[in-house]
């Protein structure tokens, strides 16, 4: 399908129609990625700052039951969780957010196929949008992305002016999705979207991820980790707002004397409990070791295993860090150290 043009009004109308059909529409608003109540709420502001958290919550919730149980005197009965068969549309997400689904899919399907993630993402249409926001924390270009990257989107929007968007269908899933909405689309004008893309300010590329990986490989014990890591307070703000952090913990919660549920909860590698063994031993006993793990996982272990950097350069973790630790600055530092070698 050729590139089309759609007005903002029509995008809103499209949303309203989706909502009418009982589809969940998620879009970045002022207070985060929220479920829209009406099409009018849609802002589609490509110049907007990143929301505090990504839309990860909608494909990988902060907490969800994975099984229910009923205890009897000598037995436990297990009951599966029924997933809701509901379509979700993520509308107007930034390229750095959209990319996350593809990255996460790898880890959730590597050996065990995570049904919860798969059902949700299979039911999700992602409509990405070119990003015209760039602050000190952005570094998508350093991890192989760009503000105009449509990777991961089913449909990609390019703002042309206040009211008009170029609409590019990226995947067959997107093609299928847009079919009923042909009435809202106009033919595109050649070159207009490319010109808009060219106008976008790209974040400067600040490190070479290959070199970073190599340095990490060779510098498990390095004073640098201690220098940066000791200021970390050990919360999981960074991990929980991150589009691609995916660690989780499993706990059983009794509901009453006999019934309960097994929950899958977000977990974060900066918690001191994260690798605490039952024996009391903790291989990552201090914060700098935990911080090293965080960086290594993103820039070495995950790339080693899945050939994919576990970071989209969105800069959320840095914007929200209570002690202003800046991943861009820190990894750039690694890049500099790597260059010195």
């Amino acid at each position, binding site marked *: 399908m050729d590139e089309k043009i759609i007005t903002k009004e029509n995008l809103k109308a499209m949303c309203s129609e989706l909502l009418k059909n009982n589809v969940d529409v998620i879009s970045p608003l002022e207070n985060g990625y929220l479920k829209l109540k009406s099409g009018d709420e849609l802002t589609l502001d490509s110049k907007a700052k990143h929301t505090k958290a990504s839309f990860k919550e909608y494909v990988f919730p902060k907490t969800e039951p994975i099984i229910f149980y009923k*205890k009897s*005197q000598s037995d436990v009965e297990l009951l599966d969780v029924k997933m809701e068969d509901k379509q979700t549309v993520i509308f107007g997400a930034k390229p750095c957010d959209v990319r996350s689904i593809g990255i996460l899919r790898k880890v959730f399907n590597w050996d065990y196929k995570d049904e919860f993630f798969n059902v949700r993402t299979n039911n999700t249409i992602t409509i990405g949008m070119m990003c015209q926001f760039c602050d000190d924390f952005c570094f998508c270009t350093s991890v192989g992305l760009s503000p105009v990257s449509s990777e991961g989107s089913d449909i990609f929007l390019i703002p042309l002016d206040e009211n008009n968007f170029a609409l590019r269908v990226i995947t067959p899933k997107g093609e299928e999705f847009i079919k009923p909405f042909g009435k809202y689309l106009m033919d595109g004008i050649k070159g207009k979207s490319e010109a808009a893309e060219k106008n976008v300010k790209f974040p400067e590329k600040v490190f070479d991820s290959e070199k970073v990986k190599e340095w990490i490989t060779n510098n498990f014990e390095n004073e640098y980790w201690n220098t940066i890591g000791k200021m970390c307070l050990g919360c999981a703000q960074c991990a929980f707002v991150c589009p691609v952090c995916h660690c989780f913990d499993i706990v059983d919660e009794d509901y009453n*004397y006999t019934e309960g549920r097994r929950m899958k909860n977000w977990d974060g590698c900066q918690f001191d409990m994260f690798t605490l063994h039952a024996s009391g031993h903790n291989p990552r006993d201090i914060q700098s070791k935990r911080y090293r793990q965080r960086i290594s996982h993103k820039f070495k272990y995950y790339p080693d295993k899945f050939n994919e950097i576990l970071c989209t350069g969105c800069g959320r973790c840095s914007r929200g860090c209570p002690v202003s630790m800046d991943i861009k600055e820190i990894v750039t530092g690694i890049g500099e150290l790597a260059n010195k070698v």
Partner: protein
Amino acid sequence: MKIGVFICHCGENIGRTVDCVRVAKACSFFPNVVHSVEYKYMCSDPGQNMIKQAIKDLKLDGVVVGSCSPHMHEKTFRKAVSDAGVNPFLCEIANLREHVSWVHDDKEVATDKAIDLMRFAVEKVKRNAPLKTIQVPVTKRTLVIGGGIAGIQAALDVANAGYEVVLVEKEPSIGGHMSQLSETFPTLDCSQCILTPRMVEVYQHPKIKLMTYSEVEKVEGFIGNFKVTIRKKARFVDDTLCSGCGDCAIKCPIKKKALSEFDEKLAFRSAIYVPFPQAVPNIPVIDKEVCTYFKNGKCSMCVKVCGRNAIKFDQQDEFISEDIGAIIVATGYKLYTIDKKPEASEIKGYGEYGYGKYKDVVDGLQFERIASASGPTSGEFQRPSDGKTPKKIVFIQCVGSRDESKGFSYCSKICCMYTAKHAMLYKHKVHDGEAYVFYMDIRAGGKMYEEFVRRAIEEDGVKYIRGRVSRIYEEDGKYIVKGEDTLAGVPIQIDADMVVLATAMVAQTDAPKLAQTIGMPYDNYGFYSEVHPKLRPVESSTGGVFLAGACNSPRDIPDSVAMASAAAAKALVLFGSDMLEREPTIAFVNENLCAGCFYCKKVCAYNAIEVKQIKDKNGNVIKEVAFVNSGLCQGCGTCNATCPSKAIELIGYTDEQIYAEIAALM
């Protein structure tokens, strides 16, 4: 875990309102319950044998009995379980009688509740740990605080049983209030005549270490193992040199500055003085407040006259530490000060009776001094104002007692008797005198007491008027007592020469302070609390601390003496064994989790939390954590609740156990 459940019918007591069969059946479905039965009388021998047999046959390692209150039979069942080889603390009781069958009517509902309570207990027992009672050694020495008749009696009883006693008295002499009394009811024998031999016996007893003019400063430790610090106040007289000749007091130029405490401020004493001639020990003290030497250094008459150089102006308070196993508190009482300035704001006082304003309005103890042969008037009845013999005395009872609006709601118990005695003594000496007693009720319970009061009325002609006095004022050298005769229903007015107020017996002013030093409870009035008013009347709830006499509540001499002997017996019971067994339900610290905030230490009423340093292998202190002194901990668990991370837990009532009970609600 294999749990056995045993439901008791308690004859019909439980069975009548709780369907025990249904309860047992329901319990059999609880996780981990492998055996669930009911029986007519679980506490009977056959009942207990059922439990023992089931433990053996089914290899049970947890038992829950649904029966009467654990306060009744917890010990019984724990012993049965223990006899069968299972740790007694793996037995829990669910209270199906006092808390269910006796208080509910609907059988369905009661049975449901019983099942719930059983579930709580089953969940708890699953998380019980096998515990061992704690053994602590006993120091077989007794501290008696207070050298009045109760303290004297307790000290003598313990010492005569062969154990050492430290007797601490804050005044310069032992004897207490009893030494101030003239005669005692109902026999009218001379108080000092019967008391003095006891005082001397104390002084001479090889097992009694007497420390007068001393106060308990600090009490550390716990039952059987107290460490007590005693402040020996400076007497400024070396008690090892003083011979008690009394020359110093005679020569002391201060004659009219200090009022005698012993004579209830009806007479003067010198700056260096022994409180009364029979004082034990007969060693003077110097009153620093009035002594000229301490004021300006200009006098040292006593030094000059003392043949033994016993006067030591530079003497300092000494602190003496004693190892003690049992403490008997016998600090006594004082009389309610009915002055215009009440001591506590909630007590309004009795300003309308003119005490403090009119010299001839006196309280009971002052009247004792006036009546006493050793008193300021040598036993002659003279009024304090002008020394004239009073021809008409009005006695007013219940001044401060039984009076919620102005004084205290309790009855001071002794006033009815001593007022009768006062009136009687007066009538015996002033034959033409008139004695009136205003009373609310006559409470003369006690051997020969009622007869005594009757004697006062019938033989000695004391006039009893049932009613209260509203006001006393002076008019032409007489005290106009305005009151009401409620039996006759008429207002009444008496022109008295003297008025005696039977003021309430109250706790010593510093009673709460001592209670806090020892760490024992006291009531709203400042009287020390016993564990149980009926069954454990002489024990404080603090282990190893016993109560004697009026420090517990108003008491007369025979009661105080009886209580003192009882307290002594309790101390001797404690000394009956070398080791002390204590409940193992005490707090325990998980040192890994303890962050050392010491909130536990702050809330511990027993100073049971100590600071422990955790060191690394090089001996450097890594952190400081809480440590529980198992001897001191009484197991209240306040630390446990206060600890934010639950690093300190109360064994037997751990968070896990309580959580399990809560979680068993639904």
